[in-house]
């Protein structure tokens, strides 16, 4: 099938797509040169922030990108809107490749792509009134005929996100963190987007406020059929809001699956460790946690072969040499691991193993 501008769109189950996708991302790459040489002119090495990410997104679907800091999830999210320019790859929105577009065409399409940032204290201009903050996308895309209509749209949006109309002449500092995030969401909704990239939208909020914002995002999705790319390190929130989850490690997807099956039985050893490390809402018996050795590696120095092998409890010689590809192990379930099988090797969490303790734990003095 050919898209409107001749880009071929691959329809397959490989990225979990059965219907025509709203968004198709293929081999998305972002490399940053690391200055080297005498005057820092020569790019000695590359920092591979995002290294070949592919996925599809259906209309009205929530795909979560999860991973630890430096795994490339935020860079991926920003590239979807071309806020960060990709090094290579394709981002096909409704059959049209965003990467080939000129500025004017891109601006037109950005009406359909909006973003909500993590820190509502930094993402709202302190010098603008709420009305003008929310109306900014309306101004940019000229979505009203007169001032009254602009005001009406803003009032509608405020109500949609659970704020009241009297608050529209106020400044951001007069609102709490949760209310500010509602304002940021109202601004993202203003031009009627089909996709919102939400980059850690509830991470800066307290638990009791967090659940209010999560519910709001779900309500808006049900009502308007908006698709979300939900970037988060909080697995419990992801489990709640996402339809599918993509786990990233060092710029690559290591696992992609439906939320429920993924949380029930993760295939990739990294996913297993990540899930078991997440703080649970209650005491859990000791010895149930997989504790990974070592640190998250620096993306400027990605290990050879599988990027996870130095920390992987089940690594074998092949893992040092060959990079595993993301492949479909069961319909709609993808993982990038030489040893991931439909019945994967469960990673042991035996805390009494002396060799295990020696490497990560403390020793008595």
């Amino acid at each position, binding site marked *: 099938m050919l898209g409107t501008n001749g880009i071929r769109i691959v329809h397959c189950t490989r990225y979990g797509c059965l219907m025509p996708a709203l968004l198709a991302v293929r081999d998305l790459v972002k490399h940053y040169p690391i200055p080297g040489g005498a005057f820092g002119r020569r790019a000695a090495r590359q920092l591979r922030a995002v290294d070949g990410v592919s996925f599809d997104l259906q209309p009205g679907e929530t795909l979560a990108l999860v991973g630890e800091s430096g795994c490339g999830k935020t860079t991926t999210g920003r590239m979807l809107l071309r806020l960060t320019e990709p090094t290579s790859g394709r981002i096909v929105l409704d059959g049209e490749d965003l990467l080939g577009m000129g500025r004017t065409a891109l601006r037109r399409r950005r009406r359909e792509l909006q973003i909500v940032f993590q820190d509502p204290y930094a993402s709202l201009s302190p010098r603008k009134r709420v009305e003008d903050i929310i109306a900014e996308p309306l101004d940019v895309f000229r979505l009203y005929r007169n001032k009254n209509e602009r005001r009406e749209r803003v009032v509608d949006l405020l109500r949609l996100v659970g704020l009241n109309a009297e608050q529209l002449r106020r400044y951001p500092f007069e609102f709490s963190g949760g209310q500010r995030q509602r304002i940021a969401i109202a601004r993202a909704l203003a031009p009627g987007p089909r996709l919102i990239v939400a980059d850690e939208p509830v991470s800066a909020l307290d*638990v009791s406020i967090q659940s209010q914002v999560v519910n709001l995002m779900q309500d808006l999705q049900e009502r308007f059929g908006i698709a979300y790319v939900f970037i988060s390190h909080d697995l419990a929130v992801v489990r709640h809001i996402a339809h599918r989850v993509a786990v990233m490690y060092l710029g690559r997807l290591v696992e992609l699956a439906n939320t429920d099956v993924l949380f029930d039985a993760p295939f990739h050893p990294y996913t297993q460790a990540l899930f078991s490390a*997440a703080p649970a*809402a209650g005491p859990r018996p000791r010895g149930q946690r997989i504790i*990974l050795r070592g640190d998250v590696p620096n993306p400027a120095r990605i290990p050879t072969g599988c990027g996870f092998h130095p920390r992987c409890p089940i690594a074998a010689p092949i893992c040092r040499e060959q990079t595993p590809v993301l492949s479909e192990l069961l319909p709609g379930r993808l993982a990038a691991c030489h040893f991931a099988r439909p019945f994967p090797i469960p990673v042991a969490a035996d805390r009494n193993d002396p060799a295990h303790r020696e490497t990560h734990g403390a020793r008595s003095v």
Partner: protein
Amino acid sequence: MNALLEVDDLSVHLFTPRGVVRAVDGVSFRLEAGQSLGIVGESGCGKTMTALALMRLLPSPPARIVGGHIRFNGEDIMDATDARLRQLRGSAMAMIYQDPMTTLNPVFSVGEQIAEVVRLHEHATPQAAFARAVEALHQVGIPEPDRCARAYPHQLSGGMRQRAVIAMALVCRPRLLIADEPTTALDVTIQAQILDLMRVLRDETGAAIILITHDLGVVADLVDDVAVMYAGSVVECAPVADVFAAPAHPYTQGLLRAMPSLERKLHRLPTIEGTVPSPAAMPPGCRFHPRCNLARTICRDHRPPLLGMPEHSAACWALTEFELSIAHVTAA
């Protein structure tokens, strides 16, 4: 039995140009040697102010302890001289902060900074102190502790820096370790490492721990008892298993329900309506009553004290002692 730490009716006020803010309002708890206590609450609930007050490290002005007693090892901390406090801090009681990058001095190597603590408290020679620093880094599970001791903070990863900070806090074998959000700035897999380390060190050194956090999940892993704070005061105090199995205060219940779980998926997350009250405009009576669906007239007019058993108490008028004891039995 004499407790290691006794806090009795502690109140901290902030004297700001816009008025007096009652940041901590009558907080009491006690901690035995080798025990661990989690203080849990949302931002602005006064948990960090409580911790700083214990070390007498409150930023003053604007903060001042306006009432209460703090007894550490039988000694009154409120009356201690500055010289005595300097002796205690770092040797008998130590603190770990949230952000290891701002805790460490960027222009000294990690080893020098840890050695400084030893030199100040134990009059060791510089060489002996540095050797102790290397040993402490080894104890917190840092590979190649010699090399790490000569490294500067920016050369270490976040997890390694937090290990170094823990090494610095523990190098003089304190009897009380106060950890203020020690893993909040870290990734999940690194957080698991640090919590595991703190557990091992607690068992090895016998230090009492106060863990301050907003994350109930972190508390579940490390402490014996939990004190839940809301708007400047403790609303519930119980053994950690009871807090999760049978929370008594409506705020604790709401907080636990609002936490999304890894195991089950609900259609909608239960929420606590409204927002945390601003410290400058606290509601009268029970401070939770505007957000509480059990609120009655008495809640608007009178503040509830901690009710119930010594081992499981909650500040709520809706609870009779009978209900609390039932909750306790169910939890056990």
